[in-house]
């Protein structure tokens, strides 16, 4: 069920009231039931996939921990007898067993995601390759839907297994408690991609009724709803029209749509996070933050530490580090330059990040675009440093910061063309029009405002969209400068936001962008 809907309000109210009425030791059980009900409302038939993923990774976690415990026990018992070499050999034996279990679990889990999400993409590409070889054959396309949140919960469960394998986290021996961690409803459809070691601290605790905590959760939800229904969905009307048929719009419209999309996707996704985290906070459960004013980043690497934080952290800990620490990568580093393993690791990660977002080459290109920028910033770090020294640029200078922030935003916004366009052809067309056929003029500007409503009320719509967007970013600018407007004047802010939501909310559009991934 959509977060912004009557149904969800009723669901949340019933769950919250029951949560604080029942004996505290059963609170986590209620959350488990509520989470499965929430999932069933969205896609009842796909509960089976969630269930299978939960069972497989639960068993994997338990077995891995048993092996780790057995290994540690043996090392402890035979501590006086074992030499350094024999300790290493014993560890290796257990590691091999653990690795085998982990690989089976990952293949099954990621395999399901792979088949459901990438089958058509894979088949289409095979057809293309055959076509290039002169063989004309079209593989049939599968018509299946994706289970809600499969990209997210697969990563959550695989991350859990790897953490247990590495002994970073303890396994959960109670299958129902583990099932709650996987299916916890605020995180299930769009993340954040939480870590078991952090979530488990509060997830199974007993939580007393605390009105202040619920009020703060509600405030956070309000911020999220404002970003979503007043800003994101409003700009989405423009973006959907223009990106839906780019050849019908002028260069200026395409530029506006690209900039608006950056705001739309941020407010949509971070708005969802605000709602999810606010809801979770109400129950006394802390989830990881996923955004930290990303459009105030000074570099692309910094942007990815502030945007979809948990996804970046997941790829760093579970793909990037293992790849560049692997023996084959180290061999490359020995034989070629030392920087090559890092480059290889980054290419693997950003190819995967692109692919994670969708089964299409324009998503992959989006990932590789960012990967290339990060590789370049890594390789040219010393060049940039000496340039700044030669030009006497003070890195702490505020004007220089503003330049960096604008530059980073432009680079990110270019990538959104790849991300949002229907396909590569559209993306190329849009880039071409923006760069070579902008033709700004008063008349072009008037036409460029139209896609909001396709009539003369577009001007008014544009005005409100800009005011609402400004509201969001002024708060962030103040926050960036340590003037915490949102934290200080909560009651006035709440009145303003609720009033604006009720008067300017675009309630007709209810689904969130990242639910499709």
């Amino acid at each position, binding site marked *: 069920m959509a977060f912004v809907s009557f149904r969800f309000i009723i669901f949340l109210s019933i769950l919250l009231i029951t949560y604080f009425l029942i004996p505290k030791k059963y609170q986590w059980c209620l959350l488990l039931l509520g989470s499965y009900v929430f999932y069933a409302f969205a896609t009842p038939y796909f509960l089976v996939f969630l269930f299978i993923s939960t069972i497989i990774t639960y068993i994997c976690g338990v077995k891995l921990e048993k092996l780790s415990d057995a290994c540690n026990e043996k090392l402890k018992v035979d501590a006086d007898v074992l030499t350094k070499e024999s300790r290493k050999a014993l560890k290796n034996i257990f590691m091999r067993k653990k690795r085998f279990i982990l690989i089976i679990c990952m293949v099954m889990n990621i395999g399901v995601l792979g088949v459901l999400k990438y089958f058509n993409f894979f088949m289409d590409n095979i057809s293309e390759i055959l076509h290039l070889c002169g063989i004309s054959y079209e593989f049939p396309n599968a018509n299946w839907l994706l289970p809600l949140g499969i990209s997210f919960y697969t990563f959550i469960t695989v991350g859990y297994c790897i953490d247990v394998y590495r002994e970073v986290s303890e396994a959960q021996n109670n299958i129902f408690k583990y099932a709650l961690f996987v299916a916890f409803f605020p995180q299930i459809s769009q993340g954040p991609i939480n870590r078991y070691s952090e979530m488990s601290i509060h997830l199974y605790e007993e939580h007393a009724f605390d009105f202040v905590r619920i009020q703060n959760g509600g405030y956070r939800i309000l911020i999220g709803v404002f970003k979503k229904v007043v800003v994101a969905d409003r700009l989405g009307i423009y973006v959907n029209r223009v990106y839906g048929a780019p050849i019908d719009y002028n260069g200026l419209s395409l530029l506006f749509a690209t900039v608006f999309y950056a705001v739309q996707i941020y407010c949509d996704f971070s708005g969802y996070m605000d709602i999810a985290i606010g809801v979770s906070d109400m129950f006394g459960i802390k989830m990881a933050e996923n955004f930290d004013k990303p459009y105030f980043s000074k570099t692309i*690497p910094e942007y990815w530490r502030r945007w979809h934080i948990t996804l970046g952290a997941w790829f760093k800990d579970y793909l990037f580090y293992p790849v560049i620490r692997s023996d084959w990568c180290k061999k490359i580093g020995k034989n070629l330059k030392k920087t090559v393993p*890092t480059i290889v690791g980054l290419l693997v990660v950003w190819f995967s990040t692109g692919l994670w977002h969708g089964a299409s080459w324009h998503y992959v290109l989006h990932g590789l675009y960012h990967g290339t920028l990060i590789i370049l910033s890594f390789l040219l770090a010393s060049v940039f440093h000496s340039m700044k020294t030669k030009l006497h640029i003070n890195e702490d200078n505020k004007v220089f910061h503003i330049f960096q922030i604008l530059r980073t935003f432009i680079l990110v916004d270019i990538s959104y063309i790849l991300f949002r366009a229907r396909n590569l052809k559209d993306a190329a067309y849009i880039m071409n029009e923006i760069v070579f056929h902008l033709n700004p003029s008063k008349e072009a500007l008037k036409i460029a405002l139209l896609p909001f409503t396709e009539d003369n009320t577009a001007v008014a719509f544009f005005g409100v969209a800009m005011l609402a967007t400004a509201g969001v970013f002024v708060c962030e600018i103040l926050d960036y400068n340590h003037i915490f407007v949102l934290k200080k004047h909560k009651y006035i802010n709440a009145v303003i936001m609720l009033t604006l939501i009720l008067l300017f909310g675009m309630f007709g559009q209810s689904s969130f962008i990242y639910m499709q991934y």
Partner: protein
Amino acid sequence: MSREEIFEQINIVFKDVFDNDDICIEEETTAADVKGWDSLMHITLMDAIEEKFDIKFDMKTIIKLKNVGEIADIIEEEI
């Protein structure tokens, strides 16, 4: 090797990896205290320390390390 000597050697590695002779690490020094110590440089740093002390960190260590003091603890255990 004493703990002071370990810290001395770690400091040399830091100066080399971050190309900055002014770096002076302490027990509580974290990534936030050293300019440029991001996730990419973290691995470069770990590789350099492994090479310097002829040890091998496992992934658990690399991810969980909070400050330089903990790096020194692991080195003391391994050597």
